């Protein structure tokens, strides 16, 4: 058997003989995945402290729709940008924005007019950000409420609308005489009320638009748009009986914990070979130092692949729905190469198990924290989201999510996978060179 493979199999055996090590590689990620999966699925769960990046598509282009957009843009929890439909959808699908809001044609006709059919607002939310969907829906309603309030306070606009509605009433022959009488009486009262408000406004500049919420009144119909992908109804994913997207998010995150466990375990194993004296035997055996180190690298690579395969298997069992298994395999491969390289660098951080272990976990924790393995990136403050680009964890999660639910095509996978591969190759070359020189 090839010495590299012999080394790798021995190291895998040692890794899984260490019960605590095995727990951090398999048990801990499962707990993380289940915990965050359950938390993310709960509508009452906590939401982001930072601003949500939202795309808005204004197909109505009316004065009312512009007003609503400006209401939304003023919200302190939202960073709003107007985009066209396709760009907005692509942006959410790739994780650039939390959600997209689409104001359909005719929005301005009915928005905030409580006696008419409420406008339909299409909302497409990043499935990984389900926690923020409820909050966003509340903000949408608040915006419509503000619009309704402003419309009520604007006498001329309101009178125009009443006049148009009266004209509609006259033209509509299907309305019964009784109803017609009732509606005419209503419009007359409304007109009278508007005139009173106009008189009051003349006396006072005070506005109470925000207080005109409507108990029991439906401000808008929320219609969901699928921003992930169309699932082939014949595919295995579509047929999975317990399809739950919550695992799509928590499991890629959890996988990274397993990966970090592998990295920490194998980085320490090189120092352990030194302290327990077995490195001496390896050095005097008729194999090269590079073979010894590549054996370690192979063991780390295989363990990462095993972790990803195991977690995907468990995720699928629970209801995860990987979009493309081939892309997922490619992502797993890139993640494994990347973190093998990081392990080789970490192995150089100290001479003793304690020093490598301490320094390794410190770096792992920072990478995990910044990269979104602890708290998803979207819940982080803006500056932290920017920092996350420096963490390989972020790219690992993005690559796996790209395969699981983001439906990345090959070109889209190239960015995260390219970064992962480059990091891995540099790590293996630099780490092996330093260790061999020792």
């Amino acid at each position, binding site marked *: *058997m090839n010495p590299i493979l012999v080394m790798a199999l*021995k190291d895998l055996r040692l890794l899984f003989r260490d019960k605590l090590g095995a727990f951090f590689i398999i048990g801990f990620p499962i707990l993380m995945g289940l915990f965050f999966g359950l938390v993310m699925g709960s509508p009452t769960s906590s939401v982001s402290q930072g601003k949500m990046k939202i795309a808005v598509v204004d197909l109505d282009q009316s004065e009312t729709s512009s007003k609503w957009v400006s209401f939304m843009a003023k919200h302190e929890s939202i960073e709003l940008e107007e985009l066209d439909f396709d760009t907005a959808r692509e942006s959410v699908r790739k994780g650039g924005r939390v959600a997209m809001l689409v104001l359909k044609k005719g929005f301005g006709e009915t928005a905030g007019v409580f006696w008419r059919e409420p406008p339909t607002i299409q909302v497409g939310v990043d499935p990984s950000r389900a926690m923020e969907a409820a909050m966003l829906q509340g903000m949408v309603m608040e915006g419509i409420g503000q619009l309704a309030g402003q419309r009520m306070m604007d006498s001329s606009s309101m009178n125009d609308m009443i006049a148009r509605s009266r004209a509609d009433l006259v033209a509509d022959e299907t309305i019964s005489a009784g109803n017609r009488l009732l509606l005419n009486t209503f419009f007359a009262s409304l007109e009278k009320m508007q005139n009173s408000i106009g008189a009051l406004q003349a006396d006072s500049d005070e506005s109470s638009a925000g207080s005109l919420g409507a108990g029991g009144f439906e401000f808008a119909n929320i219609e969901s748009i699928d921003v992930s992908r169309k699932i082939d109804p014949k595919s295995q994913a579509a047929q999975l009986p317990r399809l739950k997207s919550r695992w799509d998010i928590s499991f890629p995150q959890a996988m990274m914990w397993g990966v970090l466990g592998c990295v920490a375990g194998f980085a320490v194993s090189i120092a352990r070979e030194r302290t*327990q004296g077995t490195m*001496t*035997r*390896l050095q005097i055996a*008729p194999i090269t130092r590079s073979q010894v180190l590549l054996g370690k690298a192979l063991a780390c690579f295989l363990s990462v692949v095993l972790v990803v395969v195991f977690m995907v298997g468990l995720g699928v069992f629970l209801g995860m729905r990987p979009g493309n298994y081939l892309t997922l395999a490619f992502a797993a491969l890139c993640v494994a190469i990347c973190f093998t390289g990081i392990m080789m660098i970490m192995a150089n951080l100290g001479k003793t198990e304690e020093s490598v272990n301490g320094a390794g976990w410190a770096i792992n924790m920072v990478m995990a924290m910044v990269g979104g393995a602890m708290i998803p990136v979207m819940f982080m403050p803006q500056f932290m989201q920017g920092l996350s680009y420096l963490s390989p964890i972020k790219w690992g999660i993005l690559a796996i999510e790209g395969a699981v639910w983001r439906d990345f095509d090959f070109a889209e996978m190239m960015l995260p996978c390219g970064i992962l591969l480059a990091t891995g190759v540099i790590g293996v070359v630099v780490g092996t060179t330093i260790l061999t020189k020792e």
Partner: protein
Amino acid sequence: MSIPAVTITALSKSFGDLRAVDDLSFSVQNGETFGLLGPNGAGKTTTISLLIGLLRPDHGSVVLGKTESRDPGNPAFATVRQSVGVAPQALSIYEALTAKENLEFFGQLYGLSGAKLKERVAWCLDFAQLAERAKTRAGTFSGGMKRRLNMAVALIHEPSILLLDEPTVGVDPQSRNHIFESIQTLREQGMTILYTTHYMEEAQRLCERVAIMDHGKLLAMDTVENLLSQFGGDSIITADLQSIPSGVEIPGARSGNRIRFVAPRPLEEVAKLSSKGVAFQTLNVIQPDLESVFLKLTGRNLRDG
């Protein structure tokens, strides 16, 4: 004359200001059991490390086995390392693996596989008297069992040269005896053994020739008998006498019936006194050993360090 199994010529190695090995030269013949005797810090382990290529010498050379044009005995070559088995002073086994797994792993690194590997693993387990504990993790073994496994691992690939660096450190008497018997068996089988120790009785019992080292230097090298006769000094005889015929001169110091004297050939002296009618009640002869050789050479005891 046959080519020596190990040849060290003018070997030197320093660590900073410390001269760990200083102009060391010796050779070990094929099938010979050769001892490197010296206190802790004498440079024995550094010499072993230089021999197996773990350290590069500052000066001098090491040649293991037959000299060939392609790999002239340099331990940096895999083919040379293939012929050497090493049991380092520090235990070098995986405690999380069983005895059998340890042997299998190192056997595979030396290119063994299939039936041959199986056969060698079984031989080594038997040799180390660990066959019954083959599937037990090494971490649960006693110090002696670990030492035996450490030595067995060195033999897994049937090396022609065996380097044993202080193989009995921290070992119980039972395991120590087992190790001695094992070394004697290997010696009878014709294996070349280089044995380092700071226990003079081990060197005296096991080695045909002994090199005495101190502060990295070779102080003396010869067979045990020659070293003793050259540097050991006289034997010390103490005796309680029953009767002393008048006119017989008693050597050494006398206190009542007790006498104490030194002599190069103690038995001849005792026989001479006996023939003159001296009757011995008790007799105690302390012969010189390698400890006294070391004392003579350095002015210090071996175990002073």
